[in-house]
């Protein structure tokens, strides 16, 4: 297989989420199959502008159709499968700006999925604590919906989400939907509340101390800006969650996605190959990781 040649894919749906972020549903062309795990990423090309690594935000559908039916309860979107998936893109560089200008029906290039996602199957039967800061909800949403589609496989589920302002909350309807559910806990906080905000305010780390956590049987899944990790990890340390049960997704500039170009390397580790999701036990020994 040529490593660097993208296949073609169509943008089948576009939705603006905030001033800076847009959501895209993408379908591979000509029935090319596309299967992925929560936490993986793709390389998306806008021809003439370039290529960028982007997290997958949807979750793969359960294999059992009955489970799908169950899982649809409380979800604003259906699981994306068989050649379709969703991404959420912040307009921040050349490629992402170009993506924002594309409309439904536009053709992009696609490579991947790449990397290792969250090892959700090994977390079965355990408590899950999801912590998402800002854009971190994008890849984490994939894992959250995956788990919610298979709710009975997991024990207590807690979702913490922090955004800078109420206007910057991503997937707001889904998040508020999760808050309504009785079978999970979902807390949302904003750093700078506005007059219309009735929810919690303050940094996301403040949501952790009040939680009752059974450390031994809890897995924490964290995605957020680099600055968030240090403080969240300190709080989780106080809660005594074992380092091997803390999973973090790292942002790096993967230019090739196949462990060659060197841009995503942290020490000896190619994030595009061994990550982007790592256990804290692994990351702890990598200087420059967090």
């Amino acid at each position, binding site marked *: *297989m*040529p*490593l*660097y*040649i*993208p296949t*073609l894919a169509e943008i089948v749906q576009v939705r603006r989420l905030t001033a800076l972020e847009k959501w895209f549903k993408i379908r591979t062309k000509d029935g090319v199959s596309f299967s992925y795990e929560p936490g993986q990423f793709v390389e998306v*090309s806008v*021809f*003439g*502008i*370039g*290529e*960028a690594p982007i997290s997958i935000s949807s979750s793969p559908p359960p294999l059992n159709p009955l489970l799908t039916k169950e899982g649809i309860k409380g979800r604003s979107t259906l699981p994306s499968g068989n050649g379709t998936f969703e991404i959420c893109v912040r307009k*921040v*560089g050349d490629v*992402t700006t170009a993506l924002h200008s594309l409309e439904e029906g536009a*053709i992009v*290039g696609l490579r991947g999925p790449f990397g290792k996602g969250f090892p959700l199957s090994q977390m079965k039967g355990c408590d899950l604590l999801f912590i998402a800061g800002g854009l971190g909800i994008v890849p984490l949403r994939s894992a959250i919906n995956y788990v919610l589609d298979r709710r009975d496989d997991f024990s207590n589920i807690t979702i913490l989400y922090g955004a800078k302002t109420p206007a910057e909350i991503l997937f707001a309807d889904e998040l508020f939907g999760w808050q309504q559910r009785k079978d999970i806990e979902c807390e949302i906080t904003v750093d700078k509340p506005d007059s219309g905000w009735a929810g919690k305010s303050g940094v996301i780390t403040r949501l952790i101390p009040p939680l009752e956590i059974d450390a031994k049987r809890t897995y924490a899944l964290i995605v957020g*800006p*680099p600055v968030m990790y240090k403080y969240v990890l300190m709080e989780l340390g106080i809660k005594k969650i074992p380092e091997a049960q803390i999973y973090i997704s790292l*942002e*790096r*500039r993967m*230019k*090739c996605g*196949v*462990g*060659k*170009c*060197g*841009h995503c*390397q*942290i*020490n*000896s580790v190619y994030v595009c*190959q061994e990550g982007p999701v790592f256990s804290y036990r692994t990351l702890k020994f990598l*200087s*420059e990781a967090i």
Partner: protein
Amino acid sequence: MKPQILLKEDLPLLYESLKKKNKVFSVMEKGKGKCVFAETDTFSDPLDAYTPTLLPPKKYLLPQQETLFCFRMGASPSVEENVDVEPQVIFGVRPCDIHAISLLDKTFSLENAENRYLDRRKQTIIVGIDCLHHCDTYSFCETVGTLDVKEGFDILLTDMQSVIPSEAKESHIVEKFFITVGTKKGEEILKEFGKTRDASDAEVEQFNKIHEARKRAFEYRFKTEVANLPLVLAGANEDVTWKELEEICLGCGSCNIVCPTCYCFDVFDNVDLSLNGGERCRQWDACTLKDFAVVATGENFRKSRANRLRHRFNRKFNYLMTKYGQPNCVGCGRCSKVCLVKIDTVDVVNRLIKNKGIGNRE
């Protein structure tokens, strides 16, 4: 195939013979004391151009810039892979550079094999030239174990008169090359050429003597065994050497660009003037450049020059060394030679060894 003997006067003929079916690149002088690999019309004896070339022969396997694929833009885009592989010979490759190519072979064949590189590699004939003298003050091939080369070439020429002229004078002087045949392809080249003969037992013995004798011209330059380097580097993250280098390193990327084992690259699109299409290109990149580890949001994960340099040294003597079981540095010394502020690789490594307190060699 048995080792062969080629008369020196027939070397240009071998060159011409290879040119019939291949593009041939060989070493030529460019400016005073500087050599380059280039496509040459006529044969120029690579032995006369002894110092390592400005850029390594890597450029014929992993070009400075190349087109990965072409695309059409607009409402219905399309992509077409760009294949530009043709048979080529790199003539006069030194053992260090042969080792470097073998390391690149590993990089591009293990884990996500890259056909682009491998196809080009398959179409490449490597004619090696053995080193009998220490080429310049910067090189340290013997130190990293790359003076001897057993594979990675199709044929390897060893000058039979270079080291022991006294002995040569005693016998009747016939200037000749001893040819070690490394591959089936090498064997075929020589059969087709037809002007070599089997080396006699005496010649094999003479070759062995030359090889043994040349070691005296090379010295081991690290203050500890090479095998200890991953340990030295792993424990040197906070070493004061990096802070000292931060003060002088310019972060110019020259050391990366001349390195025969560096393979990191950047990827970008070039658009045709017509705006209807273009090409996706890749280009050599350098991990010591400021923006190498920057992500879209502006975060730079290796902001300081010291950290970037530390990363580079770790790639050479720790990360990739641990992975492949040998340093990812072949001791050509190009990095030290080209460095504008005279950062010397051997010196840096020895400072780390000294600070770690394990220097057990003089």
